[in-house]
């Protein structure tokens, strides 16, 4: 029997994740399964948003968790949460794919397939972080559309600000300033959170 999905405060959730990663270093594959149950949905959601095609997103999803399995011993709980670790790995791998020569074709495919394949489900997420995700969506929604657009192109499509400028046909200085102002508003809106 595997550990259940839990709804906990974020400190307890991070501690539980750190324990799962510790058990992975001892070769306990059920701990990997439990980590996947807790965070697979969030990672897949991000990958689908970045890569579009569900087959490739699932492939990267497995790569990320397999990498976490083989590199579990390198995880440092004092440097950040396992959730952040997974998100950073997922984004980095997705960016590698986006920057590959096939990126343009993939982005075109995504334009017609924005909807998730399966309905969203956040079971297993801790409540504080669910609230944070809602708050962040609201903050993004409140940004002027041109600032939000620049931030999303950079974050989800891996474009540099020069590439964002070229994509939008806007001056580079304008794009830099939109990103900076938007990010500062988001920082202010978020306040402090773990």
């Amino acid at each position, binding site marked *: *029997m*595997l*550990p*259940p*999905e*839990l*709804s*906990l405060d974020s400190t*307890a*959730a991070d*501690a*539980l994740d750190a324990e799962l990663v510790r058990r992975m270093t*001892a*070769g*306990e*594959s*059920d701990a990997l399964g439990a980590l*996947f149950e807790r965070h697979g*949905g*969030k990672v*897949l*959601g*991000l990958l*689908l*948003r*970045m890569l579009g095609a569900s087959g490739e997103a*699932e492939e990267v999803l*497995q790569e990320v*968790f*397999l990498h976490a399995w*083989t590199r579990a011993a390198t995880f440092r709980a004092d440097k950040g949460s396992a959730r*952040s670790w997974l*998100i950073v790995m997922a*984004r980095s791998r997705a960016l590698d794919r986006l920057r590959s020569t096939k990126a343009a074709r993939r982005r075109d495919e995504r334009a017609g397939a924005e909807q*998730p*394949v*399966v*309905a*969203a*489900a*956040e*079971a297993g*997420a801790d409540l504080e*972080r669910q609230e*944070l*995700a809602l708050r*962040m969506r609201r903050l*993004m929604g409140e940004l002027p559309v041109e600032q939000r657009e620049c*931030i999303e192109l*950079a*974050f*989800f499509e891996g*474009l*540099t*600000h020069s590439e964002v400028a070229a994509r939008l046909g806007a001056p580079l200085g304008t794009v830099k300033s939109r*990103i900076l102002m938007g*990010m*500062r508003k*988001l*920082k202010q809106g978020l306040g402090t959170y773990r």
Partner: protein
Amino acid sequence: MADACPFEALIAAHALGALDDEERTALERHLAAGCDVCAPELAAMGRVAEAIAMTASPVRPREELRSELVTRAAAVRPFRPRQAAAPPVAGARRAGRGLALAASIAVLLAVGALAWGVVLQGRLEHARQERQALATDLAAARAQLARGEVERVALLRHLAVLGASRLQQVQLAALPPAPAARGRMFLDPGSGQAVFSAAGLPPLPADRTYQLWFITGGRPVSAGTFDVGGEGSGRLLVDGVRPAAPIDAWAVTVEPAGGVPQPTGSMVLKS
């Protein structure tokens, strides 16, 4: 707003990965030298970037992906039992024979019996195929061992909780929807681990599950879902039960399969 450090304005784009190479290199060099203004800004913008990732709606992965992952993991890094070495697996011995055969054929080829070359190459290919098939068998056997190990570890963890010196025990009583039900919770406050067991619960349809909750600070917190067998009993190991406020009660409700963040269904057990 005037920036206290000229590099500070680059941090936001850096957190998004949006800097061009030249600026990124310059900023990284600056950060490596240490800057009291940029270091906290980098941490703060890193948190913003992480929160942006959370705006992508979670999508539940297909059920098969989890089992595929665990099987692949068992093959990527063979499971290493922490106690006595496991008895040799039949598949491993067979794989060893396959390798030995391939190796001996390779040696024969090396001595250069040219007339036999074609024949030997055919046999080598056959040996390679055999070795590949045996490697597949071996991976399956390892996966099976890993599954057995999962069960063993789960049982050991149950026993570890039940053997705790300061074990708290809570009885859960039946409520009208399941009058024959009874439940018991054993909590080790030291480790935050708990074992819950229930009996007399009616089996549920496939789209429903039982979900365990604890109520703390006036709000219910999920402790996980569990199913019952034909005899109506179920068991659940709960990790990380360390709420800030005392636990006022435990309860079990009937919920949609997979569980829900807040209770919605009928309550069948309550302490």
